[in-house]
C-alpha cells in the first residue's frame, strides 16, 4: 500500500513546480501552462488519494472531483487565452497608429 504515497509525492512535486513557474515566469502562456501543471498536480494527488490498491475498488468521489476540476481548469484557460488574444490584437492596432 505504498503506491499511492509515491504518486501523491509526485502530485505534490507537480503542484510545487507549477506554483514556482507561475511566480517566476512572466509570459502569459508560460503562466497558463504553469497553472495547468499545478492543477494537474492537485488532480493527481486526489487520484492517488482515491487509489486503494489492486484488490479494492477505488474511491469514486475524488475521481468525480477531478473531472469537475479538469473542466473548470479548461474553462479558465480558454477565457485567459481569449483575454490574451484581445490584448495582442489591440497592441497590434496601436502599433499601426
Amino acid at each position, binding site marked *: 500500500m505504498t503506491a499511492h504515497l509515491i504518486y501523491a509525492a509526485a502530485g505534490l512535486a507537480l503542484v510545487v513546480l507549477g506554483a514556482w513557474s*507561475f511566480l517566476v515566469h512572466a509570459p502569459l502562456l508560460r503562466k497558463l501552462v504553469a*497553472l495547468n501543471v499545478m*492543477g494537474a498536480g492537485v488532480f493527481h494527488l486526489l487520484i492517488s*488519494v482515491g487509489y486503494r490498491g489492486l484488490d479494492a475498488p477505488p474511491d469514486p468521489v475524488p475521481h468525480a472531483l477531478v473531472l469537475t476540476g479538469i473542466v473548470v481548469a479548461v474553462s479558465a484557460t480558454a*477565457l*485567459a487565452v481569449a483575454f*490574451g488574444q*484581445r*490584448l495582442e490584437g489591440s497592441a497590434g492596432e496601436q502599433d499601426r497608429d
Partner: protein
Amino acid sequence: MIDWLALSVALPLLGAVATVALPRFAVPLGLAAALPTVWAALMVMVLVADQGVQVSALGGWGAPLGILLRADGLAAALLGMANLVALAVSLYAPGYFRGSVLEARFWPLWMLLWAALNGLFLAGDLFNLYVTLELLGLAAAGLGALTGQRAAVEANLRYLLVGLLGSMTYLLGVSLIYTALGTLDLEQAARELRAGPVAWVSFALMTGGLILKSALFPMHFWLPPAHANAPAPVSAALSALVVKAAFYLVLRLWLELFGPVVGASAALLLGLLGAAAVIWGAWRALRAERLKLLAAYSTVAQLGYLFLFFPLLAELPAGTARTELLGAAVLLALTHGFAKASLFLCAGLLQKAAGHDRIDELSAATQALPVVTLGVALAGVALIGLPPSGTFTAKWMLLTAAIDLGQWPWVPVIMAGTLLAAAYVFRVLGHAFASAPRHGDAPPIDPRGCPGANAIGLALQLPGLMLALVAVLALGMTAEPLWDLLASTTDPSEAAP
C-alpha cells in the same frame, strides 16, 4: 415543498440561460428572473430569522455523500444584503446600458455571477465552495472585461490569473482535508478536525487562496484597475459583493472550521494584513484622480477593517461579547456593501453626464444631478463612519473591543483610516459644492453646461440613492434585528464549554 435555498441558486441560473438564448429580450427576461431571485433570498432570510438554521440536502443523500445547502444567521444576513444590492444593480443596468451592445452581453454573465454569490453564501460543502468560487471568478472576469477595452481586459486577465492561483491553492487545502478526514461537508469536517499539521496547513492553503481572491493586502494589486475600468453596475457588484464573498468565506471557515484549532497568532496575522490594507488603501484613495479609482482603493481599505476583527474575536471567549463583536463585523460588511454599490452607481452617472470621472472636473455634473450628489454624500457618510450610519456603530464597537481587550495598537489604525476616509470623501464633495472653479480666470460653472445630464432620468438615479439610504439610515438606526438573526450563526466555540 418549496426549497427556497435551492431556488436562490436555480432561478438566476434559469435567468442566465434565458438571456443567453434570447439576447433581444435580455432586459425583460433578466428582470423577470431577478425579482423572484430576490424573493427567494428574502424568504431564506425570513425562515432563518423565524426558525433558525435552514438545511437542504440536495438529491436527498445528505452529508457526507451528497451536498448540503445551509443557511445560518451569518449566511442569511449576507444573502439578504447581496440580493438587495443585486436588485438595485438590476434596476439600474437597463438605463445605464440603454442602446449599447453591452446590454445583451451584461445580463447572462450578471445572472451567473448572482447564482454564484447565492450559491457561495449557502454552500455547506468544501468542494462545492471551490466550484462556486470558480463560477464567481470567471463570471466576474467576463463582466469586468465587458467593454473589451485594453485597460479593462488587462486588469481582468491579471485578476483571472491571480484568482486561478487562489482557487488552486484553496483546492489543495480541500484535498488535504479530504485526505485526512474523508469528508467534504463543512460541519462534519469541523467536528473531526484536530489541532495539528493538517489543520494548520489546510488553514494556510485555504485562507491564503481566499486572500488572493479577496484582494487583502499585499494581494490587492489587481483590484483597483479591475474595478475602476468596468462599467458602473459591474464595478458596484464587484466591489460591494464579489470581494465581500471571499471575506465571508474566510470568516466562515475561521469561525466554523479553523478558529478553534489554529490559535491566535494566525488571527493576529490576518489583523496585521488588514491594518496595512486600511492605511495603504485609504492613502491611495486620497491620491486618486478618478472617482471610480478612488472608490476602488477605498474598497481595499474597507476590506482591511473587516480583517481587524479577527484578532479581537480570537481573544474573546464564547458569550455575549463575542456575538456582539461578530455582529459588528457583519454590520460593517453589510454597510460597506450598500454604500460602495451606491457610490459606484452614482459615480457611473456622473461619468455618463460629464463624459469622464476626473474628480477635479466633476463640479458641473454634480450640480446638474443633485439626487446623485446626495447619494454620493450619503455613501460617503457611511464610508467614513459618521453617525448615524451602520459603519459608525460597527467601528465604535470595534474600537471599544480593542481597548477592552488591551489590543490598543489597532486604535490608531482605525483612527487614521477614518481620517483618511473623511479626507477623500470631502475632497469629492468639496468639488461638488464648489460654486466657482479654483482658477479665477475660468468662467463660473453653469449647471446647464453639462448636456449629458439631461439624458439621465430620475429612475436611473434612485437605485444608488436607495442603497445609500439603507447604508446610512436603515442599518444605522435599526440594526438590532441583525443581532437576532446572527444568534443562529454556527460558531462551535459557543457550544463548547
